[in-house]
């Protein structure tokens, strides 16, 4: 069974997403900050990481993605952003600065999220 690590400081979002994932047969690990996320990553060895951008610092998601890819080169990362709407920011995938496999906007429909996850896991 594939294990997903969700790293996001929005607790409501985390519980909603983990419900969806669990009911579709995924194992789920949760972290609410970059530091916690790195610890859980080492403990739980997830197959995919769902990663928020702005947590304690507005760039935590990028920093974490960089550290993750340094540890496990081909770990799939799906970055979830809500900052597009709040700050008008627009980010690009970039192997150096934003080493993620895909982006999705929050809020996200469960079926789209599942589709994306399966796609990334299947590659």
């Amino acid at each position, binding site marked *: 069974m594939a294990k997903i690590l969700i790293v996001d400081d929005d607790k409501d979002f985390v519980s909603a997403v983990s419900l969806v994932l669990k009911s579709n047969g995924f194992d789920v690990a949760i972290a609410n900050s970059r530091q916690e996320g790195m610890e859980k990553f080492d403990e739980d060895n997830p197959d995919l990481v769902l990663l928020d951008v702005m947590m304690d610092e507005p760039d935590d998601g990028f920093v974490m993605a960089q550290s993750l890819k340094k540890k496990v080169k081909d770990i799939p990362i799906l970055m979830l952003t809500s900052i597009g709407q709040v700050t008008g920011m627009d*980010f690009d995938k970039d192997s*150096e600065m934003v080493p993620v496999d895909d982006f999705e906007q929050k809020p996200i429909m469960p079926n789209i999220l599942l589709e994306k996850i399966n796609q990334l896991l299947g590659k």
Partner: protein
Amino acid sequence: MQIIDRQKVNEQINDLKKKYGDDRSALMPILQDLQEIYEYLPNVVMQETAHALGIHPVEVEGVASFYSFFRTKEKQGKYVIRLCRTISCDLAGKSNVARQLENELGVKFGETTKDGKFTLEYTNCLGMCDQGPALMINDRLFAKVDPEKASQIIADCRRDFLKSDFPKVVPSDVKKAGPILDHGLKPAEALKKALGMSRSDIINTIRESGLKGRGGAGFPTAVKWQLAGAAKGKNKYVVCNADEGEPGTFKDRMLLYEHTDILLDGMTIGAYAIGASKGFIYLRGEYLYMKKYLEEALKNRRSENLLGKNILGKDGFNFNIQIRMGAGAYVCGEETALIESLEGYRGEPRNRPPFPVDTGFQGNPTIVNNVETFIDAALIISKGAEWFNEHGTEKSKGMKIFSISGDCRHPGIYEFPFGIKVSELLKEVGGEDAKAVQIGGASGHCISRKDFNRTIAFEDIGSGGSIIVFGPDTDMLQVARNFLEFFVEESCGQCTPCRDGNPKLLEGVEMLENGRCSVAYLNELKKLGETIQNASKCGLGQSSPNAFLSIVDNFKPEILGRVPEAE
């Protein structure tokens, strides 16, 4: 009446377009050069500039009228004398200098002599507060002017400075250096090391160092660089904020001149890290004398491939820097106003978000950093994060360069760690008997003796490094008045609380001076001050009442119930 040949104007504009580009962002430098030629901006010149850049003439007039260094009405004198009237120079006796200048020239402030030789004006802080009273003549600065010196300076002017004992460049007075100022680094050393690192490693090193912006707001530099590096956009920009307009700040003047290559290393490292190919140094108009010197430094770096294409053999890393001059508007130090100004508009702050890291110069991702921040970044890359963060406090890492002026025995530039107590600092500068200290310039706070055990750090009293010491005899109302006059003059006028609120506070100070302010009304003024803080659009308005409010809070017995001298 000067007769101006339209065709000639057009030829000049065409040449300038070749130099500065043909889009709107070329407007300011073109106007600056044209003003140099015509000694003001006659209508014809503004109209032709507008046509040449494809914008409406009213737009050009709007820009020219915004900046105090542009003249649209009448020809200015061959020598424009600008006397600083901001707080440190005010306390150092600028009024006597002003009087003597009027006597020597036979004109009042705001006027030009009949022979067209001199224009006399007031200006705000010139970045020489430790050596005041200060004045500026065209691109030349003069320090420690007294009435007698003022008359000598005028005499030198009349001889077109053929012979003058005054130094061409007033040296900065560094009183205490530390690890930053004594870095001992050679030009390009830090850059070479950076180019051997990955972009994310550079930003991670800056993150580990804990560096926060040295311009005053203290935003983490690594976050800014990371966000700009991650932002979508082919053209990214690096901007050095060398506007140094905060009254009481003069350390950037020294850093720009004495650590030029380290600054340029820092900007180039920033460009590499975020993926920028163009940079600007936005240099305040008051530091015009430095422009040639900086251009020379840029030229040398181009010839050594420290700027240009494939820098130091790094394939695909292209970066160049241009200097853009400000024109005497304090608000242009605010980063979004600065960007507006670079784009050729009035320096009116933008709403945020969006932020410059995403939507900066011409809508592209842009980092704007203070001079000192870029220098610190270069040193951190060269010497490591720990070298930097072994000094300072938990939340305010590193050493900081301070500009210290006012009533103390040893004013000047000092390097202290963040977290230094105000009382320790006063001891170092010979200001132990101070009655009050203004921390963070006009936009900062005025603290009294009861708070001298507080520390200077972002978590206590934050500051871009401007410290103004007020001795036991200082009239605190005079201080409040000076700061408010500054803000009334420098407000860009875009939003009501700042534009209309500050004149009301100033009026209140006048009432206090005349002993005609009730406590009830004073409380109203305090409420107004808080509204201005909360409702203003940019940092200028938000911080403009700080000094007034803290003076009212800390010195009430001194400011209430005054009996005017005349009575």
